[in-house]
Each structure stands twice: as C-alpha cells, then as structure tokens.
C-alpha cells in the first residue's frame, strides 16, 4: 500500500491543511506517513503545495516526482502536476477554477466544482475538503470515518461551528468519484 499524494493551490486555499488532514488520518489508521510542504515565501495569493506519503512500509523519500494522486486547486497547479501523475493514478481538478480538460487516458480524472459545492453548502473555504473527499473516494487511501475523527480533533476553534458542514463537504466530494 503506497499513496503519494500532492495537494496544490494558491496560498489561502487550504492545500497545506488538507494535506495535514490526510496525515492525521493516516496516523489514526496506523500507517507510516510523511507530510512535507513546499515552504517558499508563499503567503496568500502565491502557490503552495504539500506532499503526503501514506504507506504500509517505512517511508524513504518524503517527496515524489510522480504522485499517485494529486489535487490541483488552481490553474498553475494543474499545469504543473497534470503531466506528472503516475500512470494509473488519480487527478482531482477543482473545476470551479480550472476550465482545462486533460487529454490523458492513463489516469483517472475527477472534475470537482469544489468552490461551487462548498458555497452551496454554506462555506466557500471548504473547497479543499470537498476535493479531499473526491480524492479519497477515488483512491481509497483512507476511510471517511477516519477523516471525521480527524476533523473533530483538528478543526480550528474559529471554524468549530462548521464541523458538521465539513463532514458533509467531504461526502459531497466523495459522491463525485463514485
């Protein structure tokens, strides 16, 4: 079992936090896991990405050149990572912000209008969670119930009121990949 997942977007879209949700989930399920951010001067508006590796074996490199799954939240991220996904891998595209359609036939692609879904649910900041849901449904990397527990534990105090909404966002994303 090996999932090498990249999550990439503008700073402020929650790419790093989405990756941490996965890392906490993997820890919860007892896997080996690493989370590593690109830590350049990426504040709101710049690009930010992180790599999460989940494995049943000791993890060597915490970085990967060819992720088995990627969540791309904006166009620069799509352009960077779409060609790099390993054959047989999964690409989750934030279709609310990315109009491009991939020509690749060797990977599974899910177009998730994540910003629209999140806004419809009542909190636009949850687009990242919608995308995580789609990725998890497509890869089976972690159980949804595990992510519920992680949200219970790690959602910040100021977003506490949106806990249940986040769980719904996760499943709305998951429904896109069934």
């Amino acid at each position, binding site marked *: 079992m090996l999932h090498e997942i990249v999550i990439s977007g503008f700073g402020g879209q929650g790419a790093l936090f989405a990756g941490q949700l996965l890392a906490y989930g993997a*820890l919860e399920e007892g896997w080996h*896991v690493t*989370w590593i951010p690109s830590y350049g*001067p990426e504040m709101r508006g710049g690009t930010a990405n992180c790599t999460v590796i989940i494995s049943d074996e000791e993890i*060597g*490199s*915490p*970085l*990967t*050149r060819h992720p088995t799954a990627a969540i791309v939240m904006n166009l620069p991220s799509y352009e960077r990572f779409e060609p790099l996904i390993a054959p047989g891998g999964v690409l989750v595209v934030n279709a609310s912000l990315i109009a491009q359609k991939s020509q690749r036939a060797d990977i599974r692609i899910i177009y998730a209008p994540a910003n629209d879904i999140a806004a419809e649910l009542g909190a636009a900041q949850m687009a990242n969670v919608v995308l995580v849901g789609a990725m998890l449904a497509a890869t089976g990397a972690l159980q949804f119930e595990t992510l519920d527990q992680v949200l219970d534990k790690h959602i910040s105090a100021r977003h506490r009121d949106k806990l249940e909404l986040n769980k719904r966002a996760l499943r709305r994303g998951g429904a896109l990949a069934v």
Partner: protein
Amino acid sequence: MTKELWKGNEALAEAALRAGLEAYFGYPITPQTELLEYLAKKMLATGRAFVQAESEVAAINMVYGAASTGARVMSSSSSPGMSLMQEGLSYIAGSQVPVVLVDIMRGGPGLGNIAPSQSDYFQLTKGGGHGDYRPIVLAPASVQEAADLMYGAFDLADKYRYIVIIAADGNIGQMMEPIEMPPQRRLEKKDRGWELTGAAGRPHRLISSIYLQSEALHQFNMHLQAKHRQIEQNEVRYEEYLLDDAEYAVVAFGSAARAAHSAVRWARAKNIRAGLFRPISLYPFPHAQLTALAQRVRALLVVEMNTGQMLEDVRLAVAERVPIQFYGVTGGLVPFADDVLPEIEKLTRLDNGAS
C-alpha cells in the same frame, strides 16, 4: 506510547524542553523559525530564559555566557546565521563550555535561498571558526531521529564540555511525521567544578580561551585533540540498510539519505544488490566502518545536497579500494529517488566495464 504528528522544527524544540533546556538565545531565520517561535511560547511559560537577540552574533555570545554558568543552553539558526556565529563557537570551544546548536541548513553561499541544503557540512564538521576544534555534529534523517538526537545532545555536550550541533536541512525542519516524544526529564543540579556560580566560600574559577604562553596553548590544544580522539572512539553513529549482502553501497546523510533509501529499495526490486550506509554522526565520521564497507562492496555512490563535501571524508576512508561515484544537487534542489536509481545502475555498468 502513542505516536503524535510533529513538525521537525517543533519536535526539536519540544525535545530540548524535555531534556531540561534552561536558556535559549536566538534570532529568527527561515527555515528554522518555528523552533524559535515554539520556544518563545514555552520557555517563559515554564519559567525558563528565552531571548530573541538582536543578531546571531549577540545570540551566540549570550549562549557562551549562559553556558559558563553551567546552564543547559542552546541556540538554533540556519546557514547564514551559523556563519555569523562562528567566532563565538571558536571561543566556546576554546573555553570548553557545553553548548548545543541546531542548524537547519539552507542553500548557500551568501544569502542563497531558504530551500533545503546540506552545504554546511565542511563548516560544521571541520571546525568552522578559527583554531583546532571540531564540534560533534549529528545529522537526523527523520523527525523521530531529530527529537531523539536533540534529547541526548545536552548530555553529550556535558560529557565532553564541548559543542554539539544537530545538523538538519530545511526538509527535516518543515516535514511532519508521527513520532514518540521522549518523556520530560528531571535534572538534578550539581556542581561540576568549573561553572561560574559565584565564588563565595570557594576558590574563584576562570572560563577563558586566552593562553598567552605558547607552551600553555600548545598543551591546551593537545588536550582538545585527546578529547577528539575520545569522541572518535565513543560517539560514532551510523545506520546500515540492506548492506549485508550488498555489492553496491550508497552513502548519504539526512534528507539525501531518505531519497537514497527509496532508490535502494527500487534497485533491489530490479535485482541490484544495493544498500545504504547512513552516517548519523558527521563528526566523528564513521571512518572505520566505511573502510570496512569498502572491502565488501564493488563500488560506492555518495549522494548529497551539495557539490561533494562528505564525499571528501568518504574518499579518506575508502582510499582507492573501490570506485566512488558522486551525485549531488544544490541551490535548494532535493534529490529524488528517481534521480538516484539511475546513478546506482551506473555503478553496475562501471563494474562490468572494469572487469
């Protein structure tokens, strides 16, 4: 014990607290800043000393002063900041006070950039400042190891009254991994016979690096050299991975070793008998172990995030016994397993060509 997810910089800070850190002096610099931030919150809350100094030069001299009183003291920085600290470190070595430092290495020379690097190897392991001294340098390759080495670093510094440097790179500092954090220690303060605690009721003590008489300075240097020989005998640390039957060995430390670890596994899947030798102590360097390894394998590959600094120590240990190839990236680039695997494959061709 349950595992928790920790970021490298914060794990280093927490492990230092649990090892009984009493005073911290530092100056913020990426990619190390979370360490200082974490201690800023925790040190004062637990009644310990924390000072954000006006510069790294000031910070290291505050460290020197606090260490002279026998306190458990540390600083942390990243490459350009470490360069600024070198004068102070030379004085600290010359005064034989125990000090722990963390260097979260970034790209150089000069201001370079904030991305991960291993290009402080020469500076850290060969002395750095003026004079014949060499700090103990320990290079973690994971967050767990970073916490464990940090936890033991103060005892090591005390044991030899010397400098211990935890040399990690930006990736180890920024990465999160599940770890078991070692428990809080209770330290008993006892007088060790050298610290400056006020001379009332006892003969005065002097901590200094000044020896105006040549013969006296020579004697002091011989004493330091004897200390180095002891450190070389007692403190060598390394890890071997799949080396038992290996024909080809990769030598790498820190983050570079993580990529090499993956590449070695991939090479095994291609029926190449590769293994990994990972120095954990960069000084003392595992010289004898590498000499022995060179008698068992056909060729070595050294992988570093610099242009070949540890490579020189590997060459000293291996001499001309087997061919040594090098793969390095700089500037904040990180070796990927995809890059290391073809370099291992080259070793096998080199070998065929020679025979």
